[in-house]
């Protein structure tokens, strides 16, 4: 993930009053996430996110991944620990990218931003599933590039961790990797060293 809220903020300010006002508000409100709903504690020590940020991503991943309508065979994002895997992955990227990811989660959680973008004033973690989907849709289809980028960051991380899980393979008709044959014709590669 390489989005840059600072740069995008500058772009918004050039783009017009609505975008500019939105970002000024977003920048002005405290994003301490005191009201974030932590549904479940992380399964292990977090490396990048704090527990509130973890809760925000977990809540987003729960909606981005297949929902209850998929049926009981489909694991939840929580069962596959998408948030924990994302925390571990993003802890290894450039520190500033990790910092931006944390800021993104705080912006996404903000009730004020939610009110402005999707008409839903509650923090994302406290919104109803319908409101959460509407928030994701609003970011996804926004005329403001920052929100579309932010949506893509959340979507890709949730889907990467969910759909790369072997538990999902049979549900999408993927038999998984094949057995590696021992081919007599395979050259013994020269390993360096």
């Amino acid at each position, binding site marked *: *993930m*390489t*989005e*840059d809220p600072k*740069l*995008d903020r500058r772009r918004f300010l050039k783009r017009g009053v609505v975008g500019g006002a939105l970002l000024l508000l977003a920048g002005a409100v405290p994003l301490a996430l005191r009201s974030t709903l932590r549904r479940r504690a992380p399964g292990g020590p977090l490396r990048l996110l704090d527990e509130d940020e973890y809760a925000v991503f977990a809540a987003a991943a729960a*909606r*981005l*991944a*297949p*929902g209850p*309508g*998929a049926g009981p065979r*489909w694991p939840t994002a929580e069962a596959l620990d998408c948030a924990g*895997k994302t925390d571990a*992955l993003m*802890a*290894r*990227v*450039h*520190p*500033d*990218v990790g910092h931006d990811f944390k800021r993104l989660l705080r912006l996404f959680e903000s009730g004020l931003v939610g009110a402005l973008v999707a008409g839903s004033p509650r923090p994302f973690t406290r919104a109803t599933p319908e409101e959460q*989907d509407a928030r*994701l849709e609003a970011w*996804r*289809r926004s005329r403001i*590039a920052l929100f*579309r*980028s932010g949506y*893509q960051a959340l*979507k*890709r991380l949730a*889907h*990467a*961790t*969910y*759909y*790369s*899980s*072997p538990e*999902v*393979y049979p*549900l*999408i*008709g*993927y038999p998984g*990797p*094949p057995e*590696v*044959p021992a*081919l007599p*014709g*395979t*050259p013994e*590669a*020269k*390993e*360096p*060293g």
Partner: protein
Amino acid sequence: MSRRPGQILVGGELPELSAIEVDFVVVGSGAGGAAAAAVLAEAGAKVAVLEEGGHYTRADFNMQEAWAYPALYQEHGNRATEDLAIMILQGRSVGGGTTINWTSSFRTPERTLALWSERHGVRGLDAATLAPHFAAVEARLDVGPGNPDDVNNNNRKLWVGAEKLGWGPELIRRSVKGCARLGYCGMGCPLDAKRSSRTTYLADALAAGADLYTDCRVKLLQTDRRRARSVAADVLDRETDRPRGRLVAHARRGIILACGAINTPALLLRSKVGTGSGVVGKRTFIHPSVPLVAFYDEPIEGFYGPPQSVSVHHFADRGARVGYFLETSPVHPMLGALAVPGFGDSHRKIGERLPYVQATIALLVDGHHDDEGGSVAVSGDGRIRLRYPISAPLEEAAKDALANMARIQLAAGAREVMTLHETPLVIRSEADIARIADAPFGPNRHTMFSAHQMGGCPMGEDPSRSVVDARGRHHEFDNLWIADGSVFPTALGVNPQLSIYAHARLFATEIARALGPRPAG
């Protein structure tokens, strides 16, 4: 001459501070770095290759996306343009891009070489000059003729549809030997049937005495007047990817940069050296790639079989308009889920059809017209920023490509075709295709990715318009060369791996010639 074989020195085992001195320091172990290192080491020079990524072998390649993308790709699989509109698939481990590429092997098209000569001031670089180097590389990589047995269902649909429409599909030559057609080239070949640089030129370099330092991220290039002196690298902890030490590599004779078309310009910019032309990091080309999926009644199983075996170059030259060529993409769960728009159950319902999906990609040939491509910049914190605006000519090409890919799949018998706009268009007949022209297209409005990175340090004779000459030597330094895809003045119009090898081999051969006779004993 018998020389002691070189060693692989893993970053995690290096002391906190270390310094080495060799004849040549090669930064990067992909196609360019490995070929250059092999030529120079075999000429008798003492060579050290520094690689940012880890050293993995076939025993590590478990064909699981959850392991492969974080371990083997830049930014742990997260590299993208800064607006996230284009996902960048680029290798980062010993072997670089050759560890994870899809084996497609093409020589640089003559019309591209002619364009470089006519419009970009590249002199003394034509097909005849490159021919012996392509021949040598093809032999070393076991690049054979296109093989119909390599064509899986995913590629067969591209072949069948394009042939029906008279658009001349061709078999792709592949860099493999003993390929079991598993379909996991992009995650590292568990058989080493893919002839990556790790199993070929890097092995040759080590056999000739070169040393390989892994997990070393070169951050600075140090120069003195017209001489490149050394590079300074962070030695990375493999688990955290954070610095655990520092390595300084001094070069007695020269330094070869081969970090790829994003990281090489970034290294020069970060070091604030060799940027006098003002064009370092400009004109970055990526073959912006637009995918399209088709659904069939019969299983396609695009997750198995060689990822790419068929290409269509019928639209590569569209005169005044931006051209494109067509290939396929493997259809694995994670890659597919990232490409498909939407979320929740609507996204899931597409995923459930995975075995029946065919995926074609259009690779736009950028830089051949007036389009300036993208740019690479480095922030004060060292973070790389890749920008790539989709210009109107590229958008026109993308839409034309979507229409023609849809026609191909309908001709091949697809039940329906789906674009990857955020609101996908479902196409069942020619009448539906017209809707593509009006669908929103722009950053994060449609899935795009790039697996080919080029430009940013272009070749040319004019130091005000180029960074290196037509033998890879930097205009500002007598002993600094660049041997990777960044030297290409435009996109190639074909998959670049083979061209990077051949150019690097040409450059290194000329460097070695200047070294004089090989020392005895």
